[in-house]
């Protein structure tokens, strides 16, 4: 027990040894005496509140974003590790409750004037109209967009995708895949090749892509508090603590851009309900560990490409369709895709917001939008996430009506089968949706 006694002598991370730091604002100028406030070091609720406010003030007044992030994640305690790619049953509902996210099936509808301009004919279509129509993702829009954007050559795109697929799965002579590493054998390289060539092709149409940065196997981390629990055992038994979460995600590919994507719906919109789960997160099951509280978008704060555009995730071998089908868990296939989309995109958008200086006491003033594609090489599911609020702690969530919103589709196959150097049953709609995702850009460009 010497370790626990030692902890009480040195308060980790909060070594306030002088009252001078707590001097705070002076009283009204006509008063001779300093303001009467609660003690800063007493063992009382008022003192704890005052220490908390002092900590909030320190974070608000931090000189730089790096200093702010350092103070935000200073205190280390055991926290739940949230894995976006999980085999847990009904994980998407749990993740929605942890991140206060509303899930809306289908992709977000784009603005009406752009859809109305879609049926304009032909080669004489002016560049802004074609650009505006091409910017409209959505299941209803692909045919309209295909007609109205004739300079989006569907054949060229299809041949590009088929070339990449055939190169990886047919022409190249590869050895057998390593055990349980099927996704590194064919789908991984195919996805990398497809996206990098598509992005290069569409650079001319989308100046944002020309200024973007494509990361290969980046790291995305986010740390947050949500809800409260009582510490069960240990030297801190009986105290009420916030529930801490950490996401450490490794998307396969990521596109970061210097300008933010436009908002999809206004900041205060309410598109549904967040599922409420009364049980502790450990019943999911989710496990606790204590390590560095990291907030990272894939590049450091000084990088000019500090906003996110699109992430691409590869489903690991443990979560492939065949395993779910063998275990009679067909409904959990979509759950795995959704959980991946929601968790990864929440972590990315929230980390982007923290890079701009927002945190749970200083909530976002504009929504942060990012997109993601989750695939296992053949089936593609597209997601779009709008972060409206970072305030998820017990005190800040009380008067906060805002909710984060995630739009997502079910997984659809891109092709049916590859045999004898030929791709059979190629699905143009999925490719078109991917292209529209890549062409998404702010209205000014």
């Amino acid at each position, binding site marked *: 027990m010497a370790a626990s006694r030692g902890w009480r002598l040195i308060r980790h991370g909060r070594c306030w040894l002088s009252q001078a730091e707590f001097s705070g604002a002076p009283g009204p100028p006509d008063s001779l005496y300093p303001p009467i406030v609660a003690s800063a070091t007493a063992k009382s609720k008022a003192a704890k509140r005052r220490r908390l406010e002092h900590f909030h003030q320190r974070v608000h007044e931090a000189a730089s974003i790096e200093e702010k992030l350092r103070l935000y994640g200073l205190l280390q305690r055991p926290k739940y590790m949230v894995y976006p790619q999980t085999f*847990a*049953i009904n994980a998407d509902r749990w993740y929605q409750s942890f991140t206060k996210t509303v899930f809306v099936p289908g992709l977000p509808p784009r603005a009406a004037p752009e859809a109305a301009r879609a049926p304009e004919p032909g080669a004489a279509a002016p560049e802004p109209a074609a650009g505006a129509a091409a910017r409209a993702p959505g299941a209803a829009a692909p045919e309209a967009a295909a007609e109205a954007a004739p300079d989006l050559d569907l054949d060229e795109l299809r041949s590009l995708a088929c070339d990449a697929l055939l190169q990886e799965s047919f022409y190249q002579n590869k050895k057998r895949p390593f055990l349980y590493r099927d996704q590194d054998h064919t789908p991984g390289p195919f996805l990398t090749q497809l996206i990098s060539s598509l992005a290069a092709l569409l650079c001319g149409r989308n100046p944002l892509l020309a200024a973007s940065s494509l990361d290969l196997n980046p790291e995305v981390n986010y740390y947050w508090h949500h809800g409260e629990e009582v510490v069960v055992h240990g030297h801190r038994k009986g105290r009420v603590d916030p529930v801490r979460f950490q996401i450490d995600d490794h998307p396969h590919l990521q596109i970061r851009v210097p300008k933010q994507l436009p908002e999809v719906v206004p900041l205060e919109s309410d598109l549904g309900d967040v599922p409420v*789960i*009364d*049980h*502790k997160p450990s*019943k999911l*099951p989710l496990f606790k560990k204590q390590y560095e509280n990291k907030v990272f978008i894939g590049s450091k704060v000084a990088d000019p490409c500090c906003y996110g555009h699109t992430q691409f995730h590869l489903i690991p071998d443990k979560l492939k369709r065949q395993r779910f089908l063998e*275990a*009679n*868990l067909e409904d959990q296939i979509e759950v795995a895709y959704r959980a991946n989309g929601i968790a990864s995109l929440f972590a990315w958008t929230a980390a982007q917001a923290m890079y701009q200086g927002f945190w749970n006491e200083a909530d976002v003033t504009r929504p942060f939008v990012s997109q993601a594609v989750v695939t296992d090489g053949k089936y593609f599911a597209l997601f779009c996430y709008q972060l409206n609020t970072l305030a998820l702690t017990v005190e800040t969530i009380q008067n906060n009506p805002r909710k984060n919103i995630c739009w997502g589709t079910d997984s659809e196959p891109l092709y049916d089968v590859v045999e004898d150097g030929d791709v059979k049953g190629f699905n143009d709609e999925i490719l078109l949706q991917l292209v529209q995702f890549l062409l998404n850009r702010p209205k000014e460009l």
Partner: protein
Amino acid sequence: MAARVRRAVYPLFQPGGPQLRLFRPDFFMAAVRPGVPQPADTAQFRVSMEMTKVDIKNYLEKIYNVPVVAVRTRIQHGAHNRRNHKNQRVKKPDYKVAYVQLGQGQTFQFPNLFPEKEQTPEARSFDDFKNKYLEEEAQRQRGDPRRGGVPDWFGL
């Protein structure tokens, strides 16, 4: 599947050999009330120490036709600090706990095994009568309150 059957020795499985099948397993599984609240689709069992997650899944699916989606197990260490009348330490036995998630949207709530009995009017009046009689008996035994608890065979 290791069994606690007394003298049976099962052949070690080797690739190409026959699948081991047990038709009358010697194991128990006891459904217990969870100590901490569990989600609606989770049932908690105390199982034999030699059972594995696969064994538990097969046991429930084949014998009881219960659709099982996931099983998580842990071993609970029995406390070893009780003392008997000879001051020897007595250990409570270890046991394995299994948390079984049910499939097809099924839920399980451990039933209340000791519900409050509804009291019929006769029983209620009998209870009142009994309580009153016991009160009067206790009052008789108590003695004079003015003596402050001192027994009456003491003194005058």
